[in-house]
């Protein structure tokens, strides 16, 4: 499995043995970190030209996002590039994985190209794609798609291939067709691994879109960061960077949410809820109301 996951755990409300809630600990660390940063600029330990102070960054963000409001259209452009690029990459990744899982011949034939794609630094394709597709959003979508394709393909294939041998025998003993085995055993069984691939892929798609914007673009957060940096307007560049962090969190959060819904059986709270709902819905079938 190639997916690396950083769990975004919801630690709200829990307390430690010391009695200080987790959120208070996090807040404390954040405040200390920000204070040191602010002081290091104020007392000129670091030049404000190189590292803008947190206050300057917030002021720049306020100007860009609220007063002039120009950051949002760029935010929307980058987000669109990422989402469309991810959809294309995920579509291809899952489709080719499914074909590879179903046909050994297909798997053998595509394998060399997959290895070639894996060892090539995919970011190096960016200028070529721009040369092909021009300066609009399309080349960024294409680069995002190419970069996120691979982990999604590999995860999906791994998931689809790791079928439990006894479950497979059980399906065979029931004379299930290849399609029924795929539909009822292979695909649902692979969903946890496929979703892990999606989570890795969505973050990579964001990298792909930004790289595309760096190569050549007129719109997008990557363009803004580049421009502000060239003009040494670092507070503005940092403000754009923070917007990218926010975008990354939204994308990853969405993928995590979808993962929980789709792979519900791995989450105790969801299983309990769905089980209760099914029991209520089928009360007439069960005869005597909700049991146990």
């Amino acid at each position, binding site marked *: 499995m190639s997916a690396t996951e950083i769990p975004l755990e919801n630690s709200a409300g829990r307390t430690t043995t010391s009695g200080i809630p987790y959120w208070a600990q996090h807040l404390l660390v954040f405040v200390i970190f920000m204070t040191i940063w602010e002081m290091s600029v104020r007392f000129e330990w670091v030049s404000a030209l190189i590292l803008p102070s947190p206050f300057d960054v917030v002021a720049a963000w306020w100007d860009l996002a609220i007063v002039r409001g120009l950051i949002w259209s760029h935010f929307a452009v980058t987000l669109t590039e990422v989402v469309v690029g991810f959809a294309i990459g995920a579509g291809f990744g899952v489709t080719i994985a499914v074909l590879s899982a179903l046909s050994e011949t297909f798997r053998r034939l595509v394998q060399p190209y997959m290895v070639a794609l894996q060892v090539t630094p995919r970011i190096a394709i960016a200028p070529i794609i721009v040369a092909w597709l021009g300066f609009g959003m399309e080349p960024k979508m294409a680069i995002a798609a190419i970069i996120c394709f691979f982990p999604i393909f590999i995860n999906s294939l791994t998931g689809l291939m790791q079928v*439990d041998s*006894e*479950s497979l*025998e*059980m*399906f*065979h*003993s*029931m*004379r*299930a067709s290849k399609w*029924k085995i795929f539909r*009822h*055993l292979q695909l*649902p*069984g692979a*969903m946890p691994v496929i979703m892990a691939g999606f989570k890795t892929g969505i973050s990579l798609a964001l990298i792909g879109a930004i790289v595309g914007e760096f190569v050549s673009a007129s719109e997008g957060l990557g363009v803004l960061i580049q421009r502000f940096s060239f003009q040494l307007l670092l507070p503005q560049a940092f403000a754009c960077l923070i917007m990218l962090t926010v975008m990354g969190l939204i994308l990853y959060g969405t993928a995590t949410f979808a993962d929980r819904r789709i792979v*519900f*059986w*791995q989450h*105790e709270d969801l*299983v*309990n809820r*769905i*089980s209760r709902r*099914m*029991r209520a819905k*089928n009360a007439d*079938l*069960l*005869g005597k109301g909700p*049991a*146990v």
Partner: protein
Amino acid sequence: MNAVSQLKESPGTAGAARQEIISAEHIGKTFGGSVVALEDINFTVQQGDFISLIGPSGCGKSTLLRLVAGLLPASGGKLNVMGSPMTKPRPEIGMMFQKPTLLAWKSVMDNVLLPKTLAGGATRKDREKAIELLHLVGLEGFEYSFPNQLSGGMQQRVALARLLNTGAEILLLDEPFGALDEFTRERLNVELLRIQREVKATILFVTHNIQEAVFLADKVFVMTPRPGRLEEIVDVPLARPREMEITKSDEFNRRVFEIRDVLGAAT
């Protein structure tokens, strides 16, 4: 018990002349052209028999079960089930494994309905039938639980209900309770005998526990390894229905020692 109404009444289970349902003549199985897993296996099974297959690891008991299931082809000999040669899995034969092999994303109900789903779709009648089967295996009230919410023993009960729902008359059980604790295993063994009485199935049961093999079976097939052979067939003429009490009887223990001697002499 109408939970099993779909299963055909086996003619003559009570009478003397029971039908021969499985016959094996000189069957062998070789893997990769050189590894002999089974050699010259001969036996017959009558309808309604409970057969235990016992032997140490590597004696080919699971392989033999897969030959009867039609999951593997025999390398030689004749294997007939219900009068026709075994070539591929058949609706009259169902199998259950050491792992429950339940689908985690389906409710207990939908797991039991799997045979119907694979055959084209489950009707309301199928659902009512599944509820009856779950009642039969002692899982009333867990119809809409999910496998992860159940204990290992309960998961195997679901697997058993699913097996019964295939409508198979020959049930092949490959160490079905092997991964469970001793108490759960004993309780399930007693219940398996009760269920067999109700559904009148023919059962082949693989185990490596001698007590379990004797407790359940009409006949114990004792197998020895390298190459896998059917060393001896031990009859167990203990009265039915059986309760755990019989494991204390001399008659029971004589069979256990007899089987232990066969296995001891061969290894």
